């Protein structure tokens, strides 16, 4: 048992080739990785070589991202997005990821009708079933209709499909200032992904500010100005019975120009803060001590 087992980094946080990112994560003790499609497609050896690199790293995929603007479209736009979704699902399956992240639509062409949005997401979930994939639907804080987790949960309930759940992202919750009380209404078994990050501003009132901050200046949990809220969020998730992974969804232009080991080390510190200071879980005993406990020595 490793202290970092329930936490993982995201390939989008670091610069460099995929193999180097995986190695950096592994070297500080992480055992899982959230994969970004671009990191696979952009691999010089192609997707197959990228999948091989992931498998050989021994890191378990937390999930695969990201399908954008899927829901609420009609006619040829819908057909186009179904094709894109199929390719994403196939890549997701190839990497051995069990979760595909789908973000709420930002498109002006998409309907605002929550029942139609739910219908499309159910279709996406159906497409994912034969491949053994769960779909985590996340409300972007600048999503056109769905921009809070309360609405993404509403849509998921309307769709009522066992492999469709929500993705929680602390950034969007803090940016949209969604009250955390609504966490209590969520079925913990239908949270398929919990992505954590923080940022340095207290206010992000406009969609533009949220977008820019989300894409360039997120930081690891414990590094930003919402540490108390982040701790509150994680404790509430624990309280309702969430036992899944926590993945660090940190887009940060500075981290993109730092050595990978430096960034990975910051992530490790963040996970340790969450594990010990927030969740108050004890550090695992060294292996010689646990062997004594089991009576193996």
């Amino acid at each position, binding site marked *: 048992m490793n202290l970092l087992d329930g936490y993982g980094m995201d390939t989008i946080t670091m610069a460099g080739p995929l193999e180097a990112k995986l190695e950096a994560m592994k070297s500080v003790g992480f055992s899982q990785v959230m994969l970004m499609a671009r990191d696979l497609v952009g691999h010089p050896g192609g997707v197959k070589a990228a999948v091989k690199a992931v498998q050989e790293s021994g890191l378990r995929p937390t999930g695969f991202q990201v399908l954008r603007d899927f829901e609420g479209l009609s006619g040829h736009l819908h057909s186009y997005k179904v094709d894109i979704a*199929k390719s994403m699902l196939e890549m997701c399956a190839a990497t051995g990821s069990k979760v595909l992240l789908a973000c709420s639509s930002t498109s002006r062409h998409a309907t605002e009708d929550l029942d139609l949005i739910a219908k499309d997401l*159910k*279709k*996406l*979930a*159906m*497409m994912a*079933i*034969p491949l*053994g994939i769960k779909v985590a639907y996340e409300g972007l804080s600048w999503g056109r209709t769905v921009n809070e987790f309360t609405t993404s949960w509403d849509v998921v309930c309307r769709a009522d*499909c*066992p*492999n469709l759940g929500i993705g929680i992202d602390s950034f969007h919750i803090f940016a949209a200032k969604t009250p955390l009380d609504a966490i209590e209404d969520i079925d913990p078994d239908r949270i398929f992904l919990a992505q954590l990050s923080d940022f340095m501003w207290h206010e992000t009132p406009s969609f533009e500010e949220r977008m820019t901050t989300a894409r360039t200046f997120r930081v690891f949990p414990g590094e930003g100005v919402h540490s108390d809220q982040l701790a509150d969020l994680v404790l509430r998730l624990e309280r309702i019975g969430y036992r899944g992974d926590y993945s660090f969804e940190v887009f940060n232009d500075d981290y993109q120009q730092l050595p990978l080991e430096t960034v990975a080390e910051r992530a490790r510190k963040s996970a340790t803060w969450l594990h010990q200071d927030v969740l108050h879980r004890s550090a695992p005993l060294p292996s010689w001590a646990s062997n004594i406990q089991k009576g193996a020595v």
Partner: protein
Amino acid sequence: MNLRTTDREAVPEMPNRLGIQGIEFIEYATNRPQALGQVLESMGFKPVARHRSREVTLYRQGGMNLVVNANPDDARVSATADGEAEISAVAFRVQDALKAHTRCIDLGAWSVTSQAQAMELHIPAIHGPGGTRYYFVDRWQEFSIYDIDFKPIPTVDQHPAAVESMSYFGVVQYIGSARSADWMAYYEHMFDFSVIPDDERFGILPKGKLMKSPCGQFLWQLIEPDPWMEADDAPESLKRIGFGVKDVAQTVKTLKANGVEFVESKELHPEDRGALTRSALGAVSFELVHQAS
């Protein structure tokens, strides 16, 4: 004003939006068609026709059609390593094949690209678990689809009677762990299958979840790996066919005389409710299930 009594309480009818009316055929893929043919013949199937352009043979007994696909160009055949035979498709009889296919695609099914050659039937299909397919056939009343794609084997009775009136009873699907809810939702949504309560079971292998087709003519059983089985990550598959019979003991006797062996252990053995044949060609086994009518 409509005063039909059922309307007063809005009693829902079992929906059957594809107009499913039973199983038209089940297909096996194998690169050892003769060996599988022997197994099938011992179970009472007779080869009656061969495909016009591909290495595919049609077997039949009573109302059951069974296709053995040994076409080396078919990825599902080349995927069956070591000569193991696998169920590679189930064809449903439906009201309108094109409408059924279109509806399923609209709901999120993956379409299978047709490989029909000139003058052959294009049977619309969607992908099932693993590499399997579900076909939709609507021409089963006026004429036979086999008359177009298949040539009858000369001198062979095209409609051999079934051993002890056996008929298709159901299909057993092996699924991944914690996947029952997903597949139940899938079959409910796509095919209008309905879940049978856990205390209602048939035959001698009652594990897993059981669903019924909307026509009531066949069942679908979903079986997860046991929780204590370590990392059973075998691909999901259609595992075996169940045959419905009126008299299990008599059928077992007849099939034994044909050379079929049954699983006869302390825990599992032929009884009035059902029986299981021993696996042949790696994983091919059949289940007999007592069917009252």
